[in-house]
């Protein structure tokens, strides 16, 4: 009896986590470069009540055993690195990656982080930085006298000045063999881990890397309708699991009332 209560509780717990993940996805529906998360459930171990092929009465053997399961658990949450929708911003420093790859930024302590968010700005020294103020790596400086900046699809950054056009650097992209292994750090940043493999650098448009789409931003790949449907399913499943507990409670109560 108590086993069934905890079974239903694992169900409620799992659905709760599901709602947490969906809530985070929904909250990030407008976050540039956000990649939605999904939850993987798994059934828990089984308690063997009766062995299969055991004799249940003279000459009759049970064709199958009897196992009672003990509920559900979260096996993992993984991120779907599908490409989000592109939105034109007209901002000359905005970039979206059409295809595979991440931008690399350097944190003040020298550590490297990866992002799909291409909302790039200029800092006081003309260096290109991401929305969080971290330097794009390799570093690119826009000269003070630049009139306009142009970013080509292969990542070449050129500026127009009074004296003519000059190339000031090029954007590099980075890929991971297993992006699901990246650790999300908040601030739209991912950190390389042993599971993700080492970052492989490359030029946009070559060797399977995506191309740079200038003056566009990649929106979140969260699909509102899907998330809402998942939310409803999770909420109902939660409700039904709690109902299962109430039913069990009822059964126990009746049993209790027998003894008066």
């Amino acid at each position, binding site marked *: 009896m108590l086993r*069934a209560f905890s079974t*239903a509780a694992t169900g409620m717990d799992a659905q709760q986590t599901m709602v947490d993940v969906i809530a985070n996805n929904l909250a990030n529906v407008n976050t540039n470069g956000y990649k939605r998360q999904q939850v993987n*459930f798994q059934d828990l171990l089984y308690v063997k009540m009766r062995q299969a092929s055991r004799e249940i009465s003279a000459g009759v053997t049970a*064709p199958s055993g*009897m196992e009672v399961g*003990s509920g559900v658990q979260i096996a993992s949450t*993984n991120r779907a690195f599908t490409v989000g929708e592109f939105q034109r911003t007209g901002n000359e420093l905005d970039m979206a990656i059409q295809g595979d790859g991440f931008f690399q930024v350097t944190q003040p302590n020298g550590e490297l982080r990866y992002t799909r968010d291409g909302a790039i700005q200029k800092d006081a020294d003309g260096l290109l930085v991401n929305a969080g103020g971290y330097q794009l790596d390799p570093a690119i400086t826009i000269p003070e006298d630049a009139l306009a900046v142009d970013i080509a699809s292969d990542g070449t950054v050129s500026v127009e000045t009074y004296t003519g056009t000059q190339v000031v650097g090029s954007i590099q992209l980075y890929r991971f063999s297993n992006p*699901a292994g990246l650790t999300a750090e908040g601030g739209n940043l991912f950190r390389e881990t042993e599971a993700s493999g080492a970052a492989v650098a490359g030029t946009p448009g070559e060797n399977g890397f995506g191309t740079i789409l200038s003056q566009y931003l990649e929106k979140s790949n969260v699909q509102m309708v899907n998330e809402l449907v998942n939310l409803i399913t999770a909420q109902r*499943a939660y409700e*039904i699991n709690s109902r299962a507990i109430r039913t069990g409670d009822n059964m126990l109560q009746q049993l209790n009332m027998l003894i008066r």
Partner: protein
Amino acid sequence: MTTPISQMATGLQALMNEYETVTHNLANSGTAGFKRRVNAFSAELERQQRLGEERSLLNGRIDAQGAIDFTQGVLTRTERPLDVALEGKGFIALDTPQGPLYTRNGALSINLLNQLVDSSGRLVSGQNGPIVIPNAVMESDIRIDADGTVRTEEMQMGRIRIVEFGDAVDELTPAGHGCFRAPEDLPPQEAADTRVRQGYKENSNVQMVHELTSLISLSRLYEANINVLRKNRENSATLLEVARTA
């Protein structure tokens, strides 16, 4: 006296077992590749009561087996390249230190040794040993064909071993964590009619309505059984009373 109390208690216990099975199914309504457990006790009980064969219940001898319902779950699109769902009766074979296991949950990923593993890190069994995804191959370039071949445009990395057990599928026992174990004398066969669908997952085949109705009917049956038990006790009390006054 009609029925010894101890035998009625067996009926109550069986309903309790069924309740546990239903709770487990409900808890796994969102588990990919989950196959619902069937405990037909209350259904059998109701059938016998309809036919007026209640005696078998009173003997506490209805035998409900904890079978597994292997019907196909609905496939939903996830777009993740390493999510695969099976269409058909097959299973994905996994290699574990405890022997082979079989699963319908195809949320795969890549481990530190670049091998293809399931969501708990167990090796996916390939036709020629573990399937290794070279470092240079990016997740989004991986294609998984309907026959389980894992490849990119240029090269082939191996083929996921998809097996089936034909009519003997009922002999599989659940091993937990989304897996089934086959008895040793049951060798798996190559699955012929199972298609692998990349970017999909198979939903749990638990149907809420179904489980909820069995929850309701078994709690009612439980209540009815308790009432019979109570009546039984009142009757014997009356009998004692009659015997005393006589």
